[in-house]
């Protein structure tokens, strides 16, 4: 795969139905099982109706990669994805703290960190989201959006707050 084919997963979080088909597809692909907590893409529901998928945004400056003390993280030049070396990773969590969205999380086995690897250029989450016609996720060339990617790295609380503004509008505080 050449560098110009690097992709990005465009996202429209307001449309998320909370169906979690993306989580299922991700964990089946990476773990061979349905395993919600081992999925690299995770659907949060801090408030019902404000579900959204939370997964790596491939920031142009890759703060997670830079924060790793053991060089367990690297960038796949072809896809732009962050690749975790499971053998090297010491599960210290420094990449979580470095991520503006606190997106990486530990594999439930506790041994290494999980970060979206873009399924080597063919993301399973996007395929199922498109097949099910939700259109929350779709693929665009990374070249046109590179500098915007980082903006999408937000914490679950921040994203929830923003979605509440848009979906529940002036009633967003009612149930706090």
């Amino acid at each position, binding site marked *: 795969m050449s560098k110009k084919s690097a992709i990005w997963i465009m996202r429209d979080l307001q449309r998320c139905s909370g169906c979690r088909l993306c989580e299922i597809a991700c964990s089946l692909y990476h773990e061979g099982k349905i395993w919600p907590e081992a999925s690299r893409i*995770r659907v*949060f529901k801090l408030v019902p109706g404000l579900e959204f998928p939370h997964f790596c945004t491939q920031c142009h400056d890759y703060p997670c990669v830079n924060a790793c003390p053991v060089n367990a993280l690297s960038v796949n030049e072809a896809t732009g994805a962050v690749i975790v070396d499971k053998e090297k990773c010491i599960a210290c969590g420094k990449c979580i703290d470095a991520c503006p969205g*606190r997106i990486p999380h530990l594999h439930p086995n506790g041994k290494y960190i999980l970060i979206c690897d873009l399924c080597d250029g063919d993301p399973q989450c996007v395929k199922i989201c498109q097949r099910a016609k939700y259109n929350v996720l779709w693929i665009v060339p990374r070249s046109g959006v590179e500098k915007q990617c980082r903006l999408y790295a937000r914490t679950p609380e921040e994203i929830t707050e923003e979605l509440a503004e848009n979906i529940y509008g002036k009633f967003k505080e009612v149930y706090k």
Partner: protein
Amino acid sequence: MKSRGYNGKFLEVDLSREKIKVLDLEEELLEHYVGGRGVAVKFLWDRLGAEWEKVDPLGPENLLVIAAGPLTGYYPGGRICISGKSPQSNGIIGSTVGGEFGVDLRCAGYDGIIISGASKDPVYLFIKDEDVEIRDASHLWGLDGKKTLVRLTKECRDELKRRYPRFGEWKDPSILYIGPAGENLTRVAVVMEKWTHAAGYGGYGAVMGSKMLKAIVAKGSGPLPDVYDPVKTVSLINRVYDLCIARDGMRRWGTGSAGYSVGYSLSSEPIRNWQEEWHDEKSFGVDRFERKVWVKRYWGDYGCPTTCLKIAVVKTGPYAGAITDNPDYELQAYLGTNLGIFTPEGNVYVSSVIDDLGICGINGGNVLGFAGELYQRGILTKDDLDGLELKWGDPKAFAKLAEMIAYRKGIGDILAEGTFRAALKLGEMKGRDLMPYVVQVKGTGVGAHGIRSKMDYPTPIAYACSVQGGDHTSVARLPIHSSGSELIRIMCDSAVVCIFNFYPDPSLIWKFYEAVTGYHQTAEKWANGDGLRILQIQRAVLLLGGPDFTWDPRIHDDNPLRFYEPLPSGPYKGQAADRKEVEDLKRQYYEAVGWDENGIPKSEVLRKLGLESVDKALEKVRERYK
């Protein structure tokens, strides 16, 4: 046991003694009772059957069983089954609710939970894999549904972060909870998940309330249990995806398209306590809901490719700020047309109030409609209602009465007993028979699908012969192995599959079941074997009943009286249920499921199914009707 589709474990929590243990399930139990409703029925019979009549559904002796099935998490669309001795029917009702709870529980390593005893103080159960704790809920007791859910989500996420700080951001755990109606032991109280899905039929919110159990929180970090044939399982998942994704109408409108169409085209929608079943109120069309109140067009539960739900917010006017999942057909009918309400805003408002209180949309709407008709007829007066003018079509009035029910204030204390029991008590007070206005079967309000026009799916004996009474998702139907029959619905509730994802190809559940568990079943084999065994136990406990009421099948295997009154309007005007037809169908149904002329399961049928203890317990019932 061999790992195939099950964890093989239930959590057992004794709230009186504050003891928690893990119960290993025997393979034979799973093979014959599957999970969900089936396993719940078996546990309840084994543990409470000997003294069934004496068990108070709202006493500490009752059990609350929360059971996933082998297909929970695998068959697209997550649900879990909630059961126990029902405070509505005095039998067992398997009541399922959509969400993620079943998946979280299975990923935590359990197929279900049995809760016994009762706590002295409000508590909630916290489950994170093997860490299981009974925690204080006094700060949550009294809170409405949405506040309970939001606070508990935050509290438990913080707790997960505190306990496992290296993990990163924790997703929200799944939560089953009750509102004030459950706390105050109203028989129309539900067990809720998200906002707001509910295990409605059965009244299990009151059972949770009687145990002082405000909520159950689960976060599982493991995978779903391994399956028998992983390749086939994934291919079946994809098959269901394709079938469901192709159903554009169901996806776009959900069952909410029926609030108009079931009334208009099928003449089977409850209107003003079932006085009519036909309307042509386009103001109640699904398009009006869509344009006025939907803020989320597709909203679904775990792994669901249909996502028939929507989120609704009333933005302006007197009901502004009402938030709920958009009323599905049942709630459009019971909290809309049945109360004379024909606007999306009014319907969403009443639904939102009902959700916050933790009242069942169907059974709550049923008792509100009953009260509405008594007011219309002058049987209940403004004085009886603490000054409330309960006029048809007034959302605020019905919401106020719902609140009185949830807090058992004034006449709400009587109505909180559900339509049937309330009618007995009010009838006594008023010195007249109120049964003509009661639209329920064996303690449970009838679902929003009438039988008089004969256009909708329920047959004339659909409710009369169901072991779950008025439950529209578990109706008696011939032949007993047909996909709409109660026997097959027992499979849906035991494997725990959403019936809306089951419909597109009802044959897939058996293939799915075999791929996941390795056990072979067919509809015919099930309806005459393992499924029939579960049905017989449910029938037996329904007939044993008690302690406050015992059903007489010769009288109570029948439709509500209202269904024998001719429809007063619409294209099917004049049609009514026919007594002779009902009797004929009843005989045929009794014969098909092995019940005697009084509707009691026959001795030889029970013995053939290995249900000697059930047969023995029914001897006194047979004696009763000799």
